[in-house]
């Protein structure tokens, strides 16, 4: 079976690096980007199995990017990772089309598990 392809979007280098390496060591193929707009286009151009995106990105909020993806018809599961954790943000993120929401600080194993859940629960028509 093919390696799952994951897209990680975070402007903080440390977070992006950590997520990338962690997912790679869990057997995924990872692309890491730092900009929301770039991510928006890239996700539409290439097929990913799961997307991890930070809430606070320069220029666009993570949930805005998600909204645009959904508007463009992209069904890929998206997990929003964020250090901002008030209830309103979470609700808004989920309502904008995100599949899950993970707070910072996070546990690497937990994120990997959640990513696996999204892969597992995806409808098979990609």
């Amino acid at each position, binding site marked *: 079976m093919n390696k799952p392809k994951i897209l990680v979007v975070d402007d903080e280098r440390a977070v992006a690096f950590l997520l990338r390496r962690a997912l790679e060591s869990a057997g995924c193929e990872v692309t890491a980007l730092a900009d929301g707009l770039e991510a928006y286009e890239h996700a539409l151009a290439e097929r990913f199995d799961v997307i991890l995106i930070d809430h606070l990105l*320069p*220029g*666009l*909020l993570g949930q805005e990017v998600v909204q645009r993806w959904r508007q463009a018809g992209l069904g890929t599961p998206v997990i929003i990772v964020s250090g901002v954790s008030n209830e309103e943000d979470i609700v808004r993120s989920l309502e904008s089309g995100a599949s899950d929401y993970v707070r910072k600080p996070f546990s690497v194993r937990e994120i990997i598990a959640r990513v696996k859940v999204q892969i597992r629960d995806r409808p098979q028509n990609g």
Partner: protein
Amino acid sequence: MLHTIVQTFNFFIIFYVIGMQIQILVVATMSYRALASDRFVTRHGRIQDMITSDTTPPISIVIPAYNEAAGIADSVRSMAMLHYPNMEIIVVNDGSNDDTVQRMIEAFDMVPIDFPFRNAIPTQKIERLYKSRLPHPVVLVDKENGGKSDAINAGINVSKYPYFMATDADMVLESEALIHAARHFVEDRERTVAVGGNVRPLNGCEVRLGKVTKVSLPRTAIEMAQVVEYIRSFLSARPGWSRMGSLLIVSGAFGIFSKAAVTEVGGFRNDHLGEDMEMTMRLHRHFRRKKQDYRIVYSADAVAWTEVPVTWNVLKKQRVRWHRGLIQVIWQYRGMIFNPRYGFVGMVAWPSFIAFEFIAPVLEFTGWILVPISLLTGFLNPEVALPLVLIALLLGTANSIASLYLDDRFGYYSDGRSTLRLLMYTLGEHLGLRQRSVWWRVRSLFWNPKKKVWGDMQRTGVGNLGSKTSPPPSPLASVPPASSVLGPSGDS
């Protein structure tokens, strides 16, 4: 004989300008120290903890609104998103003849209410009060037209918290602006009566969902010139004056006040074009007369953004208005000049402000004409005069560079291109805006004091700011944030 007079006069002007530049440099140095010590507290004092703390003083945000139907709901939403634990937003509809009230009612599901409040400051009649049924603490005051100051006073009367922020509908505040300002109140609850914030030009910046998401410099010369001015005023001058206990202007568009103090002095005055400076001076005078220990502070970390004029016409009207306001204030508080009863403010800050903000432009204007003519026609000896003129220009340049340096800490314009542009405009300020501004100031000296007030401005179409990146401009220009202070002599 004529020769001597002309020559003396020339030298007088040149030395005057040099003196002014030295003063600016001194204040800039004080600003540097003020900003440095502020920095330690901002970085390490856990200011952010105040956001979730119960002891953070509650603030009432008062937004006067005249025909703001287009943007008022967005503006309120943007304020509601500020990171601050306890606040209420009071929109005061000053007898608008558009559907400002209707928009507010719809946007915030407002319902009529009534509650008793003291009319501590007399205002025009308040017709109706509304409250929002949504979780946002928004109150709408519907009243008869009375002008901006009257509207703010009504908002103050209705407010329930001990502190209020006077602001305009089109200000965009940084999320933590209120916290940084409120910190000064908490540090010294008893003495602090007012805190002024840092206003920056919004032009050229990207605004999304009511927040500035990307900071960049505007494109046109006139906007750039104002950026440079604002930097000079808000970073080189105010921190220094504040440190010396002589902050003479708390911006009307971004100032937080103790409700008790403002009520004690009678609220904002309505027949005034520079009502924010007037309030600050009044507070100084009142508490010094009362011999009560007080302080008025400036917070460079409390940042708010606003649109600045993009056309010469609008800019001219704004500056003329400011300067006329300044003249009113100077006349009103002339009794404080060199009056030891008013301490450092009366003996040093106020006279120096008048000398370099009011008198200087006239002299400078005269100088720009007189000096070259005198040099050319031989009335002035170039060997002596030229070096002096160059010194004056050099000092001016040094001051401008100093202010850019102070601005560096914010890191907004750190790339090469921005630096170059800022530098160019700082230096080139001497050609263009400075002269025009001075001319406007001179013109404003010949003025009839019975001129119009706030509401009327709308009809003359003063506010057409039109910038490409921000929400649609309100039909009414907000009262300028930094009031009469800005100007090429840029200080205070």
